[in-house]
């Protein structure tokens, strides 16, 4: 369904050629275009000359936001930087004005007026979504040396008297400023992230925060997200007389969350009957939670963003309605689960969390704006034991569960949520808590391979993989998303990467979802795996298949920290050697040990067999960029070791 929309939008961009209205360029853009910028590395695509937002809070609770932006394009391929985008909410906001201009490298100016504006949905996949955006795309007129600028004036009614300003993206930025004008008797405070404290310049009732000459932030693999690298401020503004309060702590945010959610937990006959039906065969508390959790996870996910401007983005639909329609989004699912559990006399609370970056939410700023996802905390007794239980000082033992991720069962938690700060919304008893981190041994892959090697170099055997925790989630996801034929193709492709001409002869997948386990047995064969040399040496690599992770660090230097996820891997390969051959040479055993992980291999020739083992264990760690070499060397050494061959010689 998506393809037609993409084609449409793309075609519109290509085909609409409005008449040029005028080529006046505002003075501010001319001035910006005259700025001399530092020399950057040759791969830096552009430099932001101005990144400016002026917010005026009016006494009737609206804000007028003026965004002014200018960028110089440094690379021919970076034409896409010449695009102005302004997002708005149909229910509570509007774009009053959007204008853009370009000063091209050869000095020709152009103004893009309303005829160039494209107004479109923000997410083509969401059918119930009020977010839209206005775009002016000047990329076809842009080239190296062009300066593109735009100004957007929008009006909205904010849900919270709070705001976030990020001073830059990945591009270097010459001048970045956020300015807030408040009515008399109002005040603003701020918290700074990813930078030393930034204090505002205050003039009357206008506060301005400014940074200049910010360096580019390169995109590097296994790096924190740009949100956790770019300087950012969170701003609270409030009436000093207390008439318009702002969240002073996380308990206040918890009370707000409960006020939206608790009334939506509606237990009617249908909800009660469903809860009883689901748990008819469950005997323990965990089994009941699991039965309900699995049901809710398997409901169709449909994102519903209607009435967001009025706070409905945070408010679930009534639980009985969601059960009746059979679909919902994350908050609907968590809320339905609460209703079903309530029938079973199990208390639970919604959790607001940020999905996508476990380090995004910061403790020091109490605000609902830090969240984009909703999961659930289920109050459990001592009889229930899983790796995802949190001991809350006021609420007791809480089992944390994501009712949306259908690949991660009760007892496990998606890795991108583990360790994240999240708001447990439980009225006065609620607040911010750190989500549990499952130990490395609860997240791993254990592989055993039995291989029969023939004198011709051909091999046949069986690979038995057992995964647990988040490692099983990846396997489960592949297995459920792919059709049988596609799954086999994927397995065959993986096999041939290590052994040319390898093919699977039988694949048996066992999804032990309730236990967060997934087992996979692959019977396979490959002709000419080992190379016969001079009719006396047989050479082969004991590593037949890859580790199923493909992180490689080839860059010489590093600017950002390196994020390493917790994981374990063990493998034992037993080769039955061909008659008449004996081991002539095999690689030395290797042992690597670092602060973030360890890796080892061993080789043993015994009774006509060669036993090869390898294992690694990584701890969830953030490695500073100055220690990059240790990470690079660790992965390079693993790669090197796994290329090492074994030599057999004819007796």
């Amino acid at each position, binding site marked *: 369904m998506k393809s*037609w929309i993409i*084609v*449409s939008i793309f075609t519109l961009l290509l085909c609409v050629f409005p008449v040029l209205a005028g080529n006046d360029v505002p003075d501010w853009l001319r001035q910006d275009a005259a700025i001399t910028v530092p020399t950057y590395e040759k791969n830096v695509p552009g430099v932001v000359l101005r990144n400016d937002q002026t917010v005026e809070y009016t006494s009737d609770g609206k804000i007028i936001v003026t965004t002014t932006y200018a960028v110089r394009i440094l*690379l021919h391929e970076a034409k896409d930087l010449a695009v102005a985008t302004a997002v708005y909410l149909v229910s509570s906001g509007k774009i009053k004005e959007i204008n853009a201009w370009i000063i091209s490298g050869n000095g020709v100016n152009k103004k893009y007026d309303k005829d160039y504006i494209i107004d479109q*949905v923000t997410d083509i996949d969401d*059918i*119930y979504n009020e977010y839209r955006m206005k775009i002016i795309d000047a990329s076809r007129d842009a080239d190296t040396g062009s300066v593109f600028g735009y100004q957007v004036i929008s009006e909205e009614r904010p849900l919270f008297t709070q705001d976030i300003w990020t001073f830059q993206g990945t591009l270097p930025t010459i001048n970045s400023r956020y300015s807030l004008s408040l009515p008399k008797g109002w005040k603003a405070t701020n918290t700074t992230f990813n930078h030393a404290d930034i204090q505002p310049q205050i003039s009357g009732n206008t506060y301005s925060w400014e940074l200049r000459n910010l360096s580019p932030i390169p995109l590097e693999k296994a790096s924190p997200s740009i949100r956790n690298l770019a300087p950012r401020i969170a701003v609270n503004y409030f009436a000093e007389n207390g008439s318009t309060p702002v969240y002073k702590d996380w308990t206040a945010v918890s009370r707000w969350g409960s006020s939206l959610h608790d009334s939506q937990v509606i237990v009617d006959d249908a909800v009660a009957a469903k809860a009883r039906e689901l748990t008819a065969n469950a005997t323990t508390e965990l089994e009941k939670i699991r039965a309900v959790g699995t049901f809710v996870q398997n409901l*169709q996910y449909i994102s519903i963003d209607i009435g967001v401007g009025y706070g409905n983005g945070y408010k679930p639909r009534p639980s009985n309605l969601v059960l009746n329609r059979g679909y919902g989004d994350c908050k609907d699912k968590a809320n339905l689960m609460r209703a079903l559990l309530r029938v079973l006399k199990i208390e639970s609370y919604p959790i607001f969390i940020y999905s996508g970056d476990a380090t995004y939410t910061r403790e020091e700023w109490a605000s609902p704006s830090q969240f984009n996802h909703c999961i659930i905390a289920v109050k459990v007794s001592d009889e229930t034991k899983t790796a995802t239980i949190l001991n809350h000082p006021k609420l007791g033992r809480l089992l944390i569960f994501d009712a949306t991720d259908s690949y991660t069962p009760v007892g496990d938690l998606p890795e991108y949520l583990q360790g994240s700060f999240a708001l447990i919304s439980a009225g006065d008893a609620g607040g911010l808590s750190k989500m549990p981190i499952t130990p490395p041994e609860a997240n791993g892959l254990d592989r055993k391979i039995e291989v029969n090697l023939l004198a011709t170099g051909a091999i046949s055997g069986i690979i038995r993989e057992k995964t647990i925790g988040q490692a099983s989630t990846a396997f489960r996801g592949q297995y459920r998303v792919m059709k049988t034929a596609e799954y086999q193709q994927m397995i065959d492709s993986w096999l041939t990467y290590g052994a040319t001409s390898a093919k699977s002869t039988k694949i048996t997948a066992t999804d032990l979802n309730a236990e967060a386990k997934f087992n996979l047995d692959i019977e396979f064969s490959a002709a000419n795996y080992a190379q016969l040399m001079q009719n006396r040496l047989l050479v082969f690599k004991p590593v037949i298949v890859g580790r199923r992770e493909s992180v490689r660090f080839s860059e010489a230097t590093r600017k950002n920290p390196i994020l390493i996820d917790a994981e374990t891997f063990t493998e034992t390969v037993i080769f039955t050697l061909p008659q008449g051959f004996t081991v002539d040479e095999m690689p030395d055993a290797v042992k690597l040990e670092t602060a973030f992980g360890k890796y080892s291999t061993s080789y043993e020739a015994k009774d006509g067999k060669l036993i090869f083992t390898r294992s690694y264990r990584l701890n969830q760690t953030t490695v500073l960029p100055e220690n990059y070499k240790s990470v690079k060397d660790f992965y390079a050494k693993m790669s090197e070791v796994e290329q090492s061959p074994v*030599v057999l010689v004819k007796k």
Partner: protein
Amino acid sequence: MNLSVKRTFLFIWLISSVFTVTLFAGDDPLPWRPVSPAELAMKTPTVEPDADAEAIFWEVRLDDKKEDKLTFTNYVRVKIFTERGRERFAKFDLPFTKDVKIEGIAARVTKADGTVLELQPSDIFEREIVKVDKVKLKAKSFAVAGIEPGVIFEYQYREVRKNDSAGGERLIFQKDIPIQKMSYYVRPYGGRTLRQNSFNMSGDVTFDKAQGDENKGFYVATMTNVKAFKEEPRMPPINFVRSWMLLYYESFNSFNFSIWSGYANAISFGFKEIVKANDDVKKTAQMLTAGGATTEDKVRNIYNFVQKDIKNITFDSTMTDEARRKVENKKPSDTLKKRMGDSGDIERLFASLVSAAGFEARIVLSGDSREFFFNPNQQAHSSFVHLCCTAVKIDGKFRYFNPGTPFLGFGQLTWYEEGVSAILIGENGYDLNGTTFNDQDKNNAKRTGKFKLTEDGTLEGNITIEYAGQNAIRRRQAGYDDSEQKRLDDFKAEMQDQMSTAEFADVTLENFADNSKPLIYACKVRVVNYAQKTGKRLFLQPGFFEYGNKAIFSDSKRVHQIFFKHPWSEDDDVQIELPPNFALDSADAPANNGDDGNISSQKFKLTVEKGTTLQYKRTFYFGNGGRILFPANAYPALKGLFDKFQQADSHTITLKQKV
């Protein structure tokens, strides 16, 4: 809304209708047909065993009775078997533009226990997907309540297209899920005779008069047990393998466009005007050909002139759209006078100049191998051909030229226009012919490497790669709008993708702008642990350029034919200076490979010079004789052959530490 935008929207809508999926006469949907107990009880698919969902029936009615509109009425019943099947039908977007109406939307889910959940009118949203000025693309969207594995899901809706006709409609019988019964009903416009042309349809599927009062005036074509269409790597164009039908009305005007001669004659009628030469054009033609020793030289001079001396604004990224639109050339002489034009203008000027120089020139309509293998013996339709190039008769034979595409050298065509059927149209009629096809020698990659191997297994040295023919065209096409740096970076990334641990430095590129010469990349390379070391041996793969290459075919099964875009060849010359403390223990060359039909060949020569330098030569080709399309049953043999190639390419030799 201007005309081009209208056309665009119609095009979008035509495309989208392929992805969308409805019976009735009024504004409301027709009553639901009863779901049978057998359908409710169905536990497994009947057409394909691993299907996630299966359509029990899929009916589309095209009503072209009225002149001013064409109505599509869809009614589909699907059994959902898996979560994936549920996901596929969980939500719907039915797009429409100003000239299209979506009406009578209805959907329902029937659960295994017979409970029915109907789509409520309040569940249907009308969304404005995108708006530019007064042009809007909208969609009617809804999510399906209660859909889950085991249910029967049904939906119906009607699309009414203003001023459209059933003639030219492509009826897709093979969808993304298997279908027990796929039916198209068509009611033609009064007095016109509707014909169809079938492609890749199993069995004899034709339109017959539909039975029953409700089908009065309709014809129906039905295909049963239709398997889902699945794409495979290296398959022919989708229209060559998927089941579909083209509808057309018999022509009654002076040009019969249901036969190729109709098209050809229409173009031939205007040929003179297209290539019309004024005095300037004639003088230029005379000047350009004056210095040519041979006929080919003369045509080459004209080719080089229009390609190099006339600014091609289609490919000039420094020009704005406004600036491009201002260059409006009505005649070849306008292009010559302004010294600029778009690709089409340059093509016409070329045809005009060669004609003015006295050569026989033809406009060439050809197929496009990305879309379809054009067969002029089949039903004619404009979508099967496009304006490809200009044919010029040189020494009694037509040769093909496309100067309007700057990365194509003299006599070169892109892979999808090579070796395809073509209609050569001139002033006095037309001929059927085939465009030229370059063999593997023309599509060559010449790769040389000079390295030094150190005792720890590090390989260091310089490489040069010369790409000719399609290898070069592809790279020039991909990079014509890129900066020099990006082209170098892309090469580096391509190499890095193959050898992730290698470091590439000082990359250079020659001849990018000169399409008469091969593209030459050169760089320094360093690969740590290239050779694997054990206690006393080093294991070395001399085939550097194939190091780390993945298998071309990994699937064990195949449904569609196998298609390679063009033949190709590789000549590798690798020199490796060996570490002084190591001696060759085993330096046997890998075995030569090839097939009995001489479609392919892989040969090796491994020598050692002065005991210290390894010389590795490899020659390879595939597609000899233009054999690049293979039946599905040839897959095991083909896969086996490529496995052998890869095995030989990764051949390892042993060096032993000197005592």
